[in-house]
């Protein structure tokens, strides 16, 4: 039917389960509300041009609104502006634009907070030993995309390490950090990065990972030298395999995000906008709508709020 409202979902990639779930969430809600959903994704993390082309396509298509997880949060702004000028509602999902008010609204996880939670948890679990911990930082990619920086810096903040420039990782000079390496966010990269850092210092006992696949890869590397039980691995995402890995003791704790929630809220907002032109409101006290983040672990520590693995499993996304 030619009169149906249409909406677009543009994600960074659609190879990461996180975005796959986001798309499923959006699709479900869209079907429910009778909205025609078009989905787009970059080819690799950081593929900015494809996202610009996707926005242009949505304008050409006459969509009512766009849900966007931007690869490059400030470069995308002119394209977003073009869409808003053409009368589309643009909602940033997961990652705020820079500046944040470049989008009509933002439904996001606080990635820095997500990092901070696992950092604080790791420090608290180690207790005294935190003072001479040996930390491996397994980041995303050398191009330092924003999510990667926020989670990394959040972790260090939470752990109690002084940050250098908070807009980039790798410039801290705390001796507890053994090194940073990049994983591309998958198992293979996670294993290789872990091996490289272990070759530098086999006594690493805390591992920060950008996401749960990287954590699983790091675990394999540790297992191959028999150290899987005396190293603390922390991660971010909260996907079902990740939470299962927390249950199995592969990962100590993970910060869980809620992509399905973001997506469905976003679709609702577009539907509202199409009907009566109202824009969604941010969470009180913040400049975005916080869809929340929760620390999932079975080894709760004092001073860091967390949910159990059981609860995590009920909320996990894929």
């Amino acid at each position, binding site marked *: 039917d030619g009169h149906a409202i249409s909406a677009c979902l543009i994600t960074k990639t659609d190879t990461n389960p996180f975005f796959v779930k986001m798309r499923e969430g959006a699709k479900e809600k869209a079907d429910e509300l009778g909205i025609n959903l078009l989905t787009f994704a970059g080819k690799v993390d950081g593929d900015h*041009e494809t996202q*610009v082309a996707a926005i242009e*396509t949505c304008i*050409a298509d006459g969509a009512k609104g766009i849900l966007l997880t931007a*690869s*490059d949060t400030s*470069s995308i702004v*002119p394209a977003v502006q073009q869409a808003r000028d053409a009368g589309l509602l643009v909602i940033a999902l997961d990652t705020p634009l820079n500046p944040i008010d470049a989008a009509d609204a933002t439904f996001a996880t606080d990635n820095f907070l997500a990092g901070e939670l696992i950092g604080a948890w790791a420090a608290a679990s180690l207790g005294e030993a935190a003072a001479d911990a040996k930390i491996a930082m397994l980041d995303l990619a*050398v*191009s330092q995309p924003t999510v990667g920086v926020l989670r990394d810096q959040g972790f260090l903040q939470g752990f109690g390490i002084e940050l250098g420039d908070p807009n980039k990782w790798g410039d801290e000079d705390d001796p507890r950090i053994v090194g940073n390496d990049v994983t591309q966010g998958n198992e293979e990269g996670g294993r290789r990065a872990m091996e490289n850092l272990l070759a530098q210092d086999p006594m690493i006992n805390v591992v920060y990972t950008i996401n749960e696949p990287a954590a699983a890869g790091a675990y394999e590397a540790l297992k191959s030298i028999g150290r899987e039980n005396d190293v603390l691995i922390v991660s971010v995402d909260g996907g079902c395999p990740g939470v299962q890995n927390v249950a199995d003791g592969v990962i100590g704790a993970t910060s869980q995000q809620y992509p399905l929630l973001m997506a469905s809220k976003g679709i609702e907002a577009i539907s509202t906008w199409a009907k009566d032109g109202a824009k969604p409101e941010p969470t009180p006290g913040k400049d975005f709508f916080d869809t929340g983040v929760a620390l999932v672990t079975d080894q709760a520590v004092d001073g860091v709020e967390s949910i159990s693995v059981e609860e995590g499993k009920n909320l996990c996304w894929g």
Partner: protein
Amino acid sequence: MSASDNYEAASAGASDRVAEFEDTRRGPVQKFHHALHQTPSLVPLIVLVLSIAVFGVLLGSKFFSPFALTLILQQVQIVGIVGAAQSLVILTAGIDLSVGAIMVLSSVVMGQFTFRYGLPPEVAIAAGLMCGTLMGFINGFLVARMKLPPFIVTLGMWQIVLATNFLYSANETIRSQEIATSAPLLQLFGTKFNIAGAVFTVGVIFMVLLVLILAYVLRHTAWGRHVYAVGDDPEAAELSGVNVTRTLITVYMLSGLICAFAGWALIGRIGSVSPTSGQLANIESITAVVIGGISLFGGRGSILGMLFGALIVGVFSLGLRLLGADAQWTYLLIGVLIILAVAVDQWIRKVAA
């Protein structure tokens, strides 16, 4: 056997008319065959027109509007410009994997020189263009003088330039708003003008002009012929008096310079200066070149074909997205269509042969 001594003299009365044959095949089909033979870039052009027609039928005015069609031009402009650089290199039987990295570094230099060091944008742009040319020179020097394989040289340079880019820019994006207020010249290529619903940008015009000029240079100047000769058989070219080293170095320098222009155009297209852009520029430009009918073994093909190749991919991408295919399905279908495009191309050539 008779007097063998002067049998050669018997050829004295030989006819001295150039051989001619009656051509019994003179219909329009034959004329068309002949045109295909003379102009190899016609084949990708036919494929392009066919694909526009197919999507036009499927999508109607959504696709067949001046807006959508010029949108394709805007979306392929970067690939088109970088593809021009890539074509030059591939014609010499090389390959340039560093095009995307050079493009991005050049745009970062333009941005940082303006905003970090406060230089006038004109100077910063000149510096960016020089930076691209210099990178190209290094590639060319390693390929032509040190005789290293282009694949490895440009693979190495890709990593080096990209890492330099991240280190130098500190992964910082310079935002569009800032550029617009204090150095709009950087966004020159993004300037739009509207002709009856069709939207053209300076970048699009630049791409088309660049390709036309290069087509002229390659076809009608000595340097252009040398580029083909070097790609065809470098040893034969050297023996028949072409300065192979100089030709190669100039090709890589020009390629670097064009990539730097692409960097400038990139600022125009995305508004900001972003060190993470352009990661797929090398594979996309090579794709355009190959679909356009230029041989990866060098010496054969036309740069106009590259432009049509880039547009074919652009048409497919936009068309499929408008048809509502989701991302993975789009990639899958583009994969199928790339193969199909080249198969059709091959088929037309065969039928025409």
